[in-house]
Structure formats: C-alpha cells, structure tokens
C-alpha cells in the first residue's frame, strides 16, 4: 500500500481536517497514558477520547457556528474548573449566562424544541430559526465525525 494510491479528494474538507486532528490527538493521548485494561482506566480513557473527538470536531468547524463555539466554551470551562483557583469566577459566569440566556419558547407547535435545545450545544439561547439552522450543521458534522471514528476503529480492530 503506497501513500500515493489514496489521496484525499478534498484536502481541506471538514472530514479530512477532523481525521487528521483526531488522529494527532489520539497519538498524543496514547503517548501520555499507557494502555491498561482495568475498567476504571478504560472509563477514564473513554471520557477523554470522547472529549477529544468533540473538541477536535468543534475546533475544525471553528467559531463560525454557535454550536461549535458553545462546545469549545464548555470544554474549556471544564478544564478551568479543574483549577480550584478559578472555580468561583467560572461559577459566577455560568450563573450569569444562564440568567441572561432566557428561554425563547413562544413559538407555536415547537414544544419539542426544548428537547432539541438540550441536545444541540449552545441551543438554549437561540430562537427557533437559528436553532434549526444550527441543528442542520450539527447533524452534518456529527455524521462526518461518526464516519471517521468508525473507520479508525475498524482499521484498528482488524
């Protein structure tokens, strides 16, 4: 199998960039944390791998989309929360954000929109129109993420 046989059709597509970034993250992860088969370790790794996948997906999309910004914000806050020094400030920020966000739920026939808001990161503060927009983009990115991760997993387990 030579390297020149398979060239990515679009080197700058989201799929390519996500695949590259995710693989780099995985490589770094595996260097830092040795593999162990205890369930606890595996659970910890699972959480880190999931975080890495979401973070690399969101950073590939960048700040163009509300959901990617919200996701990156959440991840960074989680990292900051680990530092006890900044806990108070982060907590205050979160409270303020929740209060100011509000819940635009006045649209008729969109009772399930609240469920959708919980699913899509950053969906609490959007109106229905942009929520649907963000959902469409989020679904597209999730499908590419699933495809790439599935291919990686298949390649490793073969």
């Amino acid at each position, binding site marked *: 199998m030579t390297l020149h046989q398979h060239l990515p059709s679009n080197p700058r597509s989201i799929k390519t960039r996500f695949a590259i970034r995710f693989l780099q993250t995985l490589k770094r992860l595996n260097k830092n944390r040795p593999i162990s088969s205890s369930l606890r370790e595996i659970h910890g790794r699972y959480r880190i791998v*999931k975080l890495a996948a979401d973070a690399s997906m969101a950073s590939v999309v960048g700040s163009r989309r509300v959901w990617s910004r919200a996701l990156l914000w959440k991840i960074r806050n989680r990292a900051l929360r680990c530092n006890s020094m900044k806990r108070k400030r982060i907590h205050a920020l979160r409270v303020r954000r929740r209060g100011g966000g509000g819940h635009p739920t006045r649209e008729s026939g969109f009772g399930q929109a609240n469920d959708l808001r919980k699913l899509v990161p950053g969906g609490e503060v959007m109106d229905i129109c942009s929520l649907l927009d963000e959902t469409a983009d989020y679904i597209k990115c999730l499908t590419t993420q*699933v495809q790439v991760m599935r291919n990686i997993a298949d390649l490793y387990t073969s």
Partner: protein
Amino acid sequence: MGTEDNGDMGFQHRGSSSGMNPISVSGKILGRAMSSGAIIKSTNGADPFFGSGWDSLSMSQSENFGGSSMVPLTDVANPPFPLLLTNQAIDSSSHLVHYPSDLGLVDMVPKLPSFGSGNFSEMVSSFGLPESGQITNSGCPINYLRNREGGTANTSTNNADCQENCQVSEEGSSPNGRRKRRASNSPSPMNTNKNAEREQHKESSKDSSECLKEQEEKKQKIEQNISANLRGKQTSKQAKDNSNSGEAPKENYIHVRAKRGQATNSHSLAERVRRERISERMRLLQELVPGCNKITGKAVMLDEIINYVQSLQQQVEFLSMKLATVNPELNDDIERILTKDILHSRGSNAAIFGFGPGLSSSYPFPQGIPQGTSLSIPFTTPPLNPMAQVASRCHYPAPSLSSFED
C-alpha cells in the same frame, strides 16, 4: 461551509446598503460575473433585471454555492422579483411592508408566480451553462426590451410575456431547442417577429463579447426609455420610494409584498415571513435526516430530528469507547496511511443507522473485538456507567445495534 459564509457576508453587504437603488445593489452582488454586471445595474424594468439576474446567477452559482445547501440559492434567486415590484406599481392590490431583518435580503420571501412550484434545482441546472448560458439567457430580456421599445401600453402583459419567454428560454438548454421553443411558444406577434430577428442576429454573430456589447447598448437605450415612461406615469410613487430608500440607507429591510387574498396586516406579514423561513429550514433538515421524505408535519419531523441527533451522539460515545479499548500502534507512517484509508474506506457507510452495513466491507467486525474486555458485547450487558447510560437512552434504531452480536 465556507461557501455559505461567503454567501452570507455578501447578503449582509447587500442589506446594509439598501438605501441605494435596491436593484443596483443586488445587481452588484449577483453580478459577480463581471461582464453582465453593467447590464444588471442599468436596468430599471422588472423583467430585464429578472432575466439578466438569472444569467449572472448561472455564472455565480458555481463560485458562490458549493451546493451544500439550497437556502442561499433560493434567496439569491428570489430577491429580484419583489424588489423590482417596489418600483413599479404593477399589482395594484398589493401592499408594501418594510420588515427589518438581520439577514437582509437573504430572507426574502417570495414566490415567483411563474416559478412558484419552487423546483429551484431544475431552474438553476438549466442555467448552468458557463458561456453559452449567458448568451441564451440574455436573449430573454432582449425580447422584453424590444417589446418595451415597441411601446406596448400594458405592462402586465409584457411582464407575463417576458416571464413566459424566460421560462421558455430556461427550458431550452441547447440553442437549437431554445430557438424552436421560443418561436413556437411566443404568444404575441411582436414577439415572434422579434424572436426571428433576434435568432438570425444570434446566428450571425456568435461572438459572446459582441452580443454582450449589443445587449449593453440596447439595455441602456431601453433603460432611458423605461425611465422616461416611469417618470411620465408614476412620478409621485417613484419619488416616495426614492425618498423612503434615502431615509433609511443603512437599515436592513425586507420588502415584502402580500399576495392576493392574504391579510395585509404588517404583523401577519411578518409572521408569514418567519413561518416560511422556518419551513425552509425544516425542509433542509428533512434532507439531512434519512428516512424523512414522507413525513409532513413539524411535530413528527422534530421528533425524528431529535431522535436522530440522539442516536448520532450515542454512536459517537460508543465509538469513542471502542477506541479507548483498542491499543493503537501509531507511528507517523501509519498515521498518514490511516488518514488516507479513513477518508476512503467509507464504502457503504451511507446509512449511519445500520451498524451492520456501516462496518466497512473489508473489515468484518466480529473478529476484531478485543478479548478480555466485557465491553465487546454492547448494550446487552452494560458493565460500566457510560454503557448503561447509552443503553438506557438507546431508543433509536435498536435492531441495527444487535448486529454486533453476529
């Protein structure tokens, strides 16, 4: 996604400078095909702009819209028509509403009566000829312009004629087909004469630059005529419109026209615009979520969307669990090889639902489950918390997941 952003930026610019003649503004944006920019800018009539707007659309569609979403395409196509109506009182029973919007002209509502069936992809694809498309499409406004030159009094029939001509010209992808159809379908005798002349003229001069020059000259002439006519007929109306546009040079307003038989209350118009925006997005989502073609109704559609997003998130969690257990030997070479294989071993990955067919055909799954971990049997015996969470939330395609146990 980048193409969408470029399109959005363009729309915002358009909306912010709406104080100018809206035709010229949108013409600037649409006329990224450089040669036809002048044509679009100089016309004042509804249909010449309409026709030329289409041909610039054909030029710009490839660069602007990568086809990832239909929303910007429909929005670009639609603005010409209602915008132009604001300058001419064609429909006396209509009502003009200024509707603020943050997206500016992107959110125009409009239903083009002759193109109301809304099969935009067909329309656009018929315009998708790079050079020849420009010529064929501009033939339509030429016809209209000749009609105006002829001095027909009834503007509405003119518009209807030109719309039909536009429709006809859009159908014909080949020049021969176009000529025949236009000749056969043109309703008024004036049209047939002009068509015959036009086509002979076209046959003689196939040079695109020459055609464009002629069109430009004619359009400028026509523009003067049209402006003279308008000045004669509707001085007060135009003055009002100009003053209105002058007053609000930097507001992003949508000009919406109420259709016949609909409420003209400003609130209901705004509601209608909003509803149509929402239904547009729902249509997009319908295409993204597989298996939702037959669903009509927002509630059911929303349920499907929610389920789909949940299932995708579950799949991500499951796959990350799998990756956590796997022991990867990652060297640089392997990484590069893997990258290329990953991007190309999609194979039958079209259906995200089916984990069975989703597993690439070259790597049968069951053999690859690493021994020594109880995680290899998912969803049936969840030993860990994450698996338990996943199992409890797994109400989306359960049968497909059981294929793991093969």
